Structure formats: structure tokens, C-alpha cells
């Protein structure tokens, strides 16, 4: 299974607070309709990944985190965005892997890259200088302004702080890419009222904070989950539920969110994965 989270591992084996009573997302099947009205059975994880790939349709270059972001970005190269330039923090610019890498440093990333650069060059010349359109991140905890925690979680007064992997490349990816996409499974464990630690800044305490902090990119523009899509309110930058996946209700999403989630005036329903998208995703995972 290649879907274990990478640079921003989630906290689900840490006993972080929060419960939503749901089983593992991958076990549930959801029935959707494809463009021709043919039902396509697929899992919520597949719906999430397909929608995450679609979010890259307009991107030229993408700084890719391992795990879900990498799966989505590689799927985009096989569906909506064949020319997408994949950039991995290990130093690969323009990697074209034929199979999903387990780590951001698998050999195939360098072998297929347009160029291989050192890590200082990657972060200074390419990321910091603003050359990358989209940063694609996961998260352990996310708050209503799409700020991210991947460092530590508070497990209550009687237990030591739970240790997560830490920052990795995320703080500067979130700061310096033209915009940021976030993909993670929806649960009250991940979508929290208050972060235990701010590792990477989304929209800070609200609209205008990024400018005040001198962060050059636009910040998170979408959070894609297994239940739907959240986007920042144009006024306040607070995340709004803008899209549901087929068969999911607003109440379900609210129950899986650790703050009183607001919805957009009009909530759309995402188009179900097409047979072509599903076939490409399954081939990618099987490779």
C-alpha cells in the first residue's frame, strides 16, 4: 500500500484527540455515475485522489509532497495535465516516474528528471524565488484558515506530547509557491478547531495575514478531502464547504469537521470519477 502519508504524515496512530466513529475511509465504497450515466463503483479515497488530480488541470509546475499529493500529481500527468512538471524536494525537477515512488528520493525520480539539483538549490533558487506554481501538501491537523500542523499533537494532560515528523519542506512550500493545494482525509482528528502547533501557514488568522507576514504566494486555494472540497472565503479566507462528492451530505462533512463549518451559498457536487480516471489511478497504484 503506497498511500501512507509522507512528508506530512497524519496523526492517526498517535491517539490524537477527536473521534468521528467512521471506519477506515478506504473500506467504504461509493457509487457514482460517470459522464455517460454508467455507475462506477469507487472508494472515497479514489474520489478524493481524482478530484485532487483535477485541481492541477491549470498548473504548469507542482512541488509534490509524498503520499496522497504524489499520487494525485502523478494521476494528473496521466489524465488532465500530461505536461505537468513534477518537482520533488529531493532535487528532481520535472520527474516522470512510471510508478508511484515510495519515497521522495526513489531513484526513478532522478533518472527521469529534466534536471537534478542539490537540496539547497531546490529550496533557494527554485522554491524561494517563486518559480513554482502549485505546492501540493498533506497535513496531520488543519484549521479553518488552512494552517497546517505536522509537528506535535497534544494528547491530554496525562500523556506526553505526540511526536509527528515535523516541518520538512512544508513551511516554505506553503509560503512561496504561487498557490497551495491540500489533500487529506476528512475527520475531526485532522480538521481541528485549534492547531496544537503551527508548522506551515495557510491564511494565518484570516484574510490579509499572509501579506502582513510577507508570504509571497496566494496560499491554500482548495482542501480536497474524501468527503468534498473546501475553499477559502474570498472575504475572510475561512474555509467554506464548496463541493460535496456524490452521495455525501453537508451534515456528514460537518460531523467530520472540528469547528462549525460554514458552507458556500451554493454547494456543488463533484463529477464522479470517469472510467478513464479510475483506470489510470488503479493502473498507477498497481504499477
Amino acid at each position, binding site marked *: 500500500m*503506497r498511500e*501512507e*502519508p*509522507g*512528508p506530512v*504524515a497524519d496523526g492517526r*496512530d498517535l491517539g490524537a484527540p477527536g473521534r468521528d466513529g467512521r471506519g477506515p475511509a478506504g473500506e467504504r465504497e461509493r457509487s457514482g455515475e460517470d459522464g455517460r450515466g454508467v455507475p462506477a463503483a469507487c472508494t472515497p479515497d479514489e474520489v478524493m485522489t481524482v478530484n485532487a488530480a483535477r485541481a492541477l488541470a491549470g498548473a504548469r509546475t507542482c512541488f509534490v509532497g*509524498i*503520499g496522497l499529493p504524489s499520487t494525485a500529481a502523478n494521476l494528473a500527468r496521466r489524465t488532465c495535465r500530461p505536461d505537468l512538471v513534477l518537482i520533488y*524536494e*529531493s*532535487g*528532481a525537477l520535472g520527474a516522470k516516474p512510471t510508478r508511484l*515512488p*515510495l*519515497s*521522495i*528520493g*526513489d*531513484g526513478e*525520480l*532522478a*533518472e527521469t528528471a529534466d*534536471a*537534478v539539483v*542539490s*537540496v*539547497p538549490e*531546490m*529550496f*533557494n533558487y527554485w*522554491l*524561494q524565488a517563486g518559480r513554482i506554481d502549485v505546492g501540493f501538501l498533506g497535513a496531520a491537523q488543519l484549521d479553518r484558515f488552512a494552517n497546517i500542523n505536522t*509537528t506535535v499533537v497534544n494528547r491530554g494532560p496525562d500523556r*506526553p*506530547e*505526540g*511526536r509527528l*515528523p*515535523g*516541518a*520538512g*519542506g*512544508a*513551511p*516554505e512550500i506553503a*509560503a*512561496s509557491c504561487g498557490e497551495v493545494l491540500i489533500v487529506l482525509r476528512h475527520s475531526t482528528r485532522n480538521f481541528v478547531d485549534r492547531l496544537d*502547533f*503551527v*508548522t*506551515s*501557514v495557510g491564511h*494565518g488568522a484570516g484574510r490579509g*495575514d499572509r501579506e502582513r*507576514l*510577507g*508570504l*509571497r504566494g496566494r496560499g491554500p486555494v482548495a482542501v480536497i478531502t474524501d468527503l468534498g472540497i473546501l475553499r477559502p472565503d474570498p472575504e475572510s479566507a475561512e474555509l467554506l464547504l464548496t463541493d460535496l462528492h456524490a452521495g455525501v451530505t453537508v451534515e456528514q462533512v460537518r460531523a467530520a469537521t472540528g469547528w462549525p463549518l460554514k458552507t458556500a451559498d451554493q454547494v456543488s457536487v463533484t463529477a464522479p470519477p470517469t472510467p478513464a480516471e479510475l483506470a489510470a489511478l488503479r493502473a498507477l497504484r498497481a504499477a
Partner: protein
Amino acid sequence: MADIRTLPEAVAELIHDGDAVAMEGFTHLIPFAAAHEVIRQGITDLTLIRMTPDVIYDQLIGAGLARKLVFSWGGNPGVGSLHRFRDAVENGWPRPLELDEHSHAGMANRYAAGASGLPFAVLRGYRGTDIPRRTDTLATVTCPFTGEELAAVAALNPDVTVIHAQQADREGNVQLWGLTGVQKEAALAARRALVTVEEIVDELRPRPGAIVLPGWAITAVAEVPGGAHPSYAAGYSVRDNDFYQAWDPISRDRERFTAWLRENITREGTQV
């Protein structure tokens, strides 16, 4: 000109109790064999420096040889947690582990400052995060030209840096290629540098994108074929992803880890 040594000799000569040691290699070319030799020799009270502690430091931490870790991302890449690292941080087992924690961009620049002989490096980073609350090697500096406030990160100058490379020649000139990570900066930032190599060759043939470190900039070279396993050396081996996955259950349990260490690293006659 670097000294050509056996691995046990080189480790004994270059790495001492209490040293600040960087073993670099960004997923690729991680010097595992050298770390295993450190475990066999019981060199302890180390400050371990590495952007991604990876399984290599999970082993050193679990073996009780580290008192401090300087790092930016402590996970098992593509698999999940580093359980020995977490056990040390959360429960102090087998001993407490002090942390100095940065982002990748910060760590890369700290090495670059160290290699440049500067006291600190400047970058645009960390703004708005809680990271500055947990480290004293991070500050801000005002640009004298624009007035912009920027992050300043303290230089890293390890007592010794250990890296693995594909080849060296008999004068100890070293060539590495593929993902070259932060090894050049880490080697040049250190007071002493040890390079383990897949093979020693008569002549280094230039490779696209390769880094060459002149032998006079390196303290010692040791030939250790397969010395990066379960990491890899492009052109020689592939990453042993199965091992990284197998490490998860081994490292989750203290007794199982301890038995693994005894059977694979410290038992009489074990190598690499």
C-alpha cells in the same frame, strides 16, 4: 589527499564520544554502514545532525548513542513514523533526546553557511509558524538594503560529516551522482569528513550532474560496497523499499528492535 582506510579504522579515528556528527544523503546514498560501525564501536553522547533522520538515525537513537538531534523531518519516508525517534522524544527511551528542529530550507541553508565559513544564513522562511519557539538557532535579521525582515539560521559546523558516494580514486577524490542532496555542503561544513564509497577506481569518469569532492577536502575514504543499504547508490543498487516497510514493525517494539540490533549489527562477526 584523503587517507584510504578500512571502515572500522576510519570511524575510530574520526568519530569520538560527544561529537556533533552529520550523516547526510537525502534518501539516496545514506551512509548506513558507517552508522552501524558507530554502533559496533559504541561511540556515544553524539549530537546527530541530519535533515531527515530516516531509519539510519532511528537505529542510532534506539541504540542509545544520541543525546541530541538536529533535524527537519523525522519520518520513515513513505511508510510512517520513526518509532525509536518517537519513543526517545515521547518517553525518553533509552535516554532523553534533546531536539533542535528546523525546516528543510533552514537546514539546507545552515549547512551552506557552515560550508561558506559564515556564522549564519539568510532565507525567507518560518514566518508565522511556531517553529521559532522551539529552537535557539533561528532569529530574524533586517535586510540592510530593503528593510525586509528575513530569517537568520545559525551555521552548522559538525565535528565530522559522513557521506556515501559511488566512487573514489586512489588519491581519495570522490564522485557522487544522482540525487546529491546536501552532501557537498555538509562535507565542507565539517571539521572532518569521512566518505564511504561503493568502489575505489583507477580513474573517475565524469558523470552528468555529478559532484566531485577533491581528496584534499576529505579526511578519509573507506571502500564499503553496499554501504548505503537499505538506501541506495544510483548505478549500483536500488532503494530497498521492502526494508523500509519491514522496519516499521521491527522498530515499533523495544524488545524486537533490541533483538534486531543484536542479531544484525552488534553480534560478533556481523558486518554492514
